[in-house]
């Protein structure tokens, strides 16, 4: 029995159709959702998402969001979402470099700063988080685009490089 699935962002409907299963990731790890799953609402991490229908697998890059599962329907409210073929690898590569440079700059700032004003530190931390998220989005996009089974493992590997 297939289940209905929608992937939506604020701007558009990215995917709508019947699927057999969906694999997503949240903080705790990867989970596969099959028809008849218990009602669930969960926060998704910036990661790849896999849809299976008619024996085929489709990959999507998700920039975080929320998943809602109700028995036979799955809705994903994604902050960003692209199918593998939609990803602009050149842009993603640029974004990766840009975020990396920004992170390095912030790291440099940190070591120089002797006086640690908590408010300033907070702001820097937030900025760092934003750049880290941007970097992760870029990495996920690149991984998905390469069809390199965009699960977190390959993303993790890339991170270490």
């Amino acid at each position, binding site marked *: 029995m297939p289940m209905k699935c929608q992937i939506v*962002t604020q701007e*558009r409907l990215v995917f709508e159709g019947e699927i057999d299963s969906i694999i997503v990731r949240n903080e705790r790890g990867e989970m596969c959702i099959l028809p008849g799953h218990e*009602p669930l609402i969960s926060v998704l991490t910036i990661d790849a998402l896999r849809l299976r229908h008619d024996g085929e697998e489709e990959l999507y890059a998700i920039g975080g969001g929320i998943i809602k599962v109700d028995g036979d329907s799955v809705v994903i*409210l994604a902050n960003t979402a692209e199918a593998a073929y939609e990803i602009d690898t050149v842009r993603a590569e640029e974004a990766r470099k840009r975020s990396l440079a920004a992170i390095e700059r912030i790291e440099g700032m940190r070591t120089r700063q002797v006086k640690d004003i908590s408010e300033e530190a907070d702001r820097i931390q937030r900025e760092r988080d934003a750049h880290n998220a941007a970097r992760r989005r870029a990495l996920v996009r690149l991984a998905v685009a390469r069809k390199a089974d965009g699960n977190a493992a390959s993303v993790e590997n890339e991170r270490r490089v």
Partner: protein
Amino acid sequence: MATARDIQLRIRSIQNIAKVTGALEAVAAVKVHHAQQQALSSRPYIETAQHLMRSIVSPHLVSTFDLLKPRSEVNRIAVLLITSDRGLAGAYNVRIVNMALDFEQEQSAPVHYYIVGRKGQSIMARRKADVAVAFGDIPSRPSVDYAHGIARVIESAYTDRHCDIVYLLYTRFVNLIEQEPVIKQLLPVIPEQNSDSPTIPTIPYSYEPDEEAVLEELVPHYVENVIFQALLEAVASEHAARMTAMHSATNNANDLVDELTLSYNKARQLAITSEMLDIVGGSEALSQSNHDQMLEGSEN
């Protein structure tokens, strides 16, 4: 009385105006269509987000969330006002600004403004309103990123206690002929009640990691989405208002051209008649004097 040439010049300039207003109308029609399309494609997100808000938000959670918890004392009120950059849109900007000022009159606490769109900015400055932030131009195709930027500014103003309640004022798109300015509470967030499904049976969802984390992820995006939707509707309304205004301007210009063409014909006819009278009068005078001479000669 104007001469035929004067009238002809006026007709030409009015015809040119009609061309411009006609073109503006056509452009506005295309833009309305686009904005409507954009608003339509983001509908699934809102519906699910509203559903999620309703199923998660419980009184117990509300009290722990700054963006959800109503403040006991409202000392400062903020209004996010969405206007347009350009005029020639009928009463579009005036209506929304008047609504804002009327609203301000009714409040007991001081009101300050966050303004999107250059027109609103200049009108409010002239009316000596307290403008905290002017975001400048409204994009012709609002993006989520743009809404995100506005949402962050407003949220931090709210959490830093620069205001205790935030309202959103924009022009709702009813249809091509009708647009109405509306006011909505933006912060603290009140989950919107959908009229179609007033009571959804609450499904016992399990939450991962927990309700708080889900809400923490959802609420900022929800606020952003409300702003994004308002921007889309405002843009659609602006173009619809411009379309109507330009349509009647084109009609008026055409009516005027018709009227002027009539007076042009009259003036032209008058000129011809008077010229002919001159000629006829002249020749008549000549033949009269010949006749007189002949009479004088025969007498001799």
